[in-house]
């Protein structure tokens, strides 16, 4: 089977001392970033991107570094979820539901170890799934013409709000904002400037890294100013960390089920990790029933969302690598990484740059073992990091964000845009308007418009061409259903709210 020869090539790249070194550094940094309250996988990776590029690493090395930061942050996120009741990002919310009660009962160590093992199982299975599914999907993706791509982008935007948003109009509005911003700059077809308002700085368009750093990292600073950093106190004590073998053994089926479900949720374009952790938690809750004690510190309630979350993170890489459509906020950030590296995701990636794909998959497999080793025996080191006061951490994050963007573009105007996006992110999040669709819009806007225009060139302006193939019709129908269904389903699927002290 060629998958094994491909993997062998990937491991050859991944086991080179330099790549291995970067993977270990990435895992370490990622776990720290994930553990820090207020930093999660998406904003953590966001502030690391500009810095990585100014270091001048080659494509594979930069990708390995940033994806191991991403995987590491997914692991690290559980530390602040469990010990502080602060989820680093949306998917980590489910881990707080039982993780924090467990920690308050004096089982913080157990919760950390179980969630670490669950993360490992989820991420490992998902990476294996990625290695098998991605090449298959990339063969299907060869049949995608512009009409199919347009339908796929439509699907991604319409399901993005999904059940993780509370208001479909707001989720759609966020996508529109992103798309509107993406249109600013030179028209790719005609080369004429548009929607720049005559501003020369906007001729090149708005850099997505600027938007990501502003919306994800700088807006967080304003939230910390608002709360005066009060949420940063360590609520529970962590005593000796031992491995609760019995609990791990008893949750084996939970972990496996959740990994499979999480992976599937992750593969769906636009759905992503939030859906993965949400669905797995709800599934295990209904399997366990009333006696399961979910919400009061159930072991399965910690294992399920962590396995689901990490499996979805791996699964989300499938549509991202094969179709160029990210499945979640963090994969959107990773797509930004690829685009900055001049790597175009899509079916051709697997044939043109097999070194990148398989090197990445192999180093993800290695990263997983590194992360398990870091996150179970060495978890106490990362817990110490939680004690960094927000009054030092948040100014530091701001300055790192600014310097990263500045050293990448050297333009004061981009820094002003970062501030603007920071304020925008603050207002949007206050209004409960999701920010991930804005990023997705900026990232995919031009590709989406181009696919529409190419389709119309092919059909000579006949709009029915968009329904010309069964794939595109199916995707458009799925997009409409995916947008409307949550409006009715929301009545039955209420999101569990955060546990309060």
């Amino acid at each position: 089977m060629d998958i094994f020869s491909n993997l062998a090539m990937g491991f050859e790249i991944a086991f080179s001392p330099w790549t291995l070194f970067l993977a270990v550094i990435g895992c370490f940094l990622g776990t720290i970033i994930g553990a820090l309250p207020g930093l999660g996988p998406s904003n953590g990776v966001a502030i690391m991107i500009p810095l990585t590029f100014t270091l001048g690493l080659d494509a594979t090395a930069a990708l390995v570094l940033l994806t191991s930061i991403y995987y590491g942050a997914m692991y690290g996120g559980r530390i602040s979820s469990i010990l502080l009741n602060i989820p680093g990002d949306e998917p980590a919310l489910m881990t707080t539901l039982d993780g924090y009660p467990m920690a308050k009962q004096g089982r913080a160590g157990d919760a950390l170890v179980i969630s670490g093992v669950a993360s490992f199982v989820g991420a490992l299975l998902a990476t294996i799934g990625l290695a098998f599914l991605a090449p298959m999907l990339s063969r299907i993706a060869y049949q995608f013409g512009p009409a199919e791509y347009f339908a796929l982008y439509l699907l991604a935007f319409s399901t993005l709000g999904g059940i993780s948003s509370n208001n479909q109009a707001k989720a759609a509005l966020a996508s529109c904002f992103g798309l509107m911003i993406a249109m600013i700059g030179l028209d790719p077809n005609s080369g004429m400037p548009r929607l720049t308002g005559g501003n020369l700085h906007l001729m090149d368009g708005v850099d997505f890294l600027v938007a990501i750093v502003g919306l994800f990292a700088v807006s967080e600073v304003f939230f910390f100013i608002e709360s005066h950093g009060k949420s940063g106190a360590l609520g529970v004590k962590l005593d000796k960390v031992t491995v609760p073998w019995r609990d791990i053994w008893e949750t084996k089926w939970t972990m496996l089920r959740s990994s499979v479900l999480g992976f599937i949720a992750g593969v769906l374009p636009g759905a992503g990790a939030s859906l993965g952790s949400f669905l797995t938690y709800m599934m295990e809750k209904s399997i366990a029933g009333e006696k399961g004690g979910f919400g009061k510190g159930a072991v399965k309630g910690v294992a399920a969302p962590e396995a689901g979350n990490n499996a979805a993170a791996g699964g989300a890489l499938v549509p991202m690598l094969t179709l160029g459509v990210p499945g979640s906020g963090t994969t959107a950030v990773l797509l930004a990484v690829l685009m900055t590296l001049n790597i175009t995701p899509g079916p051709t990636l697997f044939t043109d740059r097999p070194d990148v794909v398989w090197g990445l998959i192999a180093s993800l497999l290695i990263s997983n073992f590194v992360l398990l080793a870091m996150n179970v025996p060495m978890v106490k080191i990362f817990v110490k990091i939680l004690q960094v006061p927000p009054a030092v951490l948040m100014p530091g994050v701001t300055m790192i964000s600014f310097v990263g963007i500045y050293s990448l573009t050297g333009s004061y105007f981009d820094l002003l845009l970062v501030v603007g996006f920071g304020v925008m992110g603050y207002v949007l999040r206050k209004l409960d308007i999701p920010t991930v669709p804005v990023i997705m819009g900026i990232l995919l806007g031009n590709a989406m418009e181009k696919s529409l225009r190419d389709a119309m060139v092919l059909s000579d302006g006949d709009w029915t061409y968009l329904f010309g193939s069964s794939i595109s019709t199916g995707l458009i129908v799925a997009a409409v259903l995916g947008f409307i269904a949550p409006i009715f389903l929301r009545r039955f699927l209420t999101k569990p709210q955060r546990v309060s002290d």
Partner: protein
Amino acid sequence: MTRLTDRIFGLVTILVAFMYIMSATQIQASFLSDPVGSKTFPIIVAVVAVICGGVMILRPDAEPDWPEGYTLLSIAISVALLIGYSYALKPVGFLIPTAVVAGAISYQISPRPRFAALAGIGLSIGLFVLFKFILGLGLSGLPKGMGL
């Protein structure tokens, strides 16, 4: 009239989207033309935004809890400082603006003057050493002509 925030935001959205549409109609056509052209897609997106803004006006969510008085002022001051920082970074160099702004933000998060000042100076020097000497970024530390 309750739930004002969503309604106002919806209204602003509609206004911005209309301005966007106006601006899109002004896009110059080029000799390289395709059936869709440069205007159509931006206009479609802006129309969807108008509809969403309308929904927000008609069916607003509950009011978010906005910060009041002093906190709002703190955020405004921080925004102003960051704007100043954007302009200052190139001519004045990294060290001085970073110490000032990082210290000020630290103070806004937790109002302890001495701690904030130390945090600002520490972050400024620490990050400069990290960026300049460990990561090797081309960053100037002091105002032009003063070395570093």
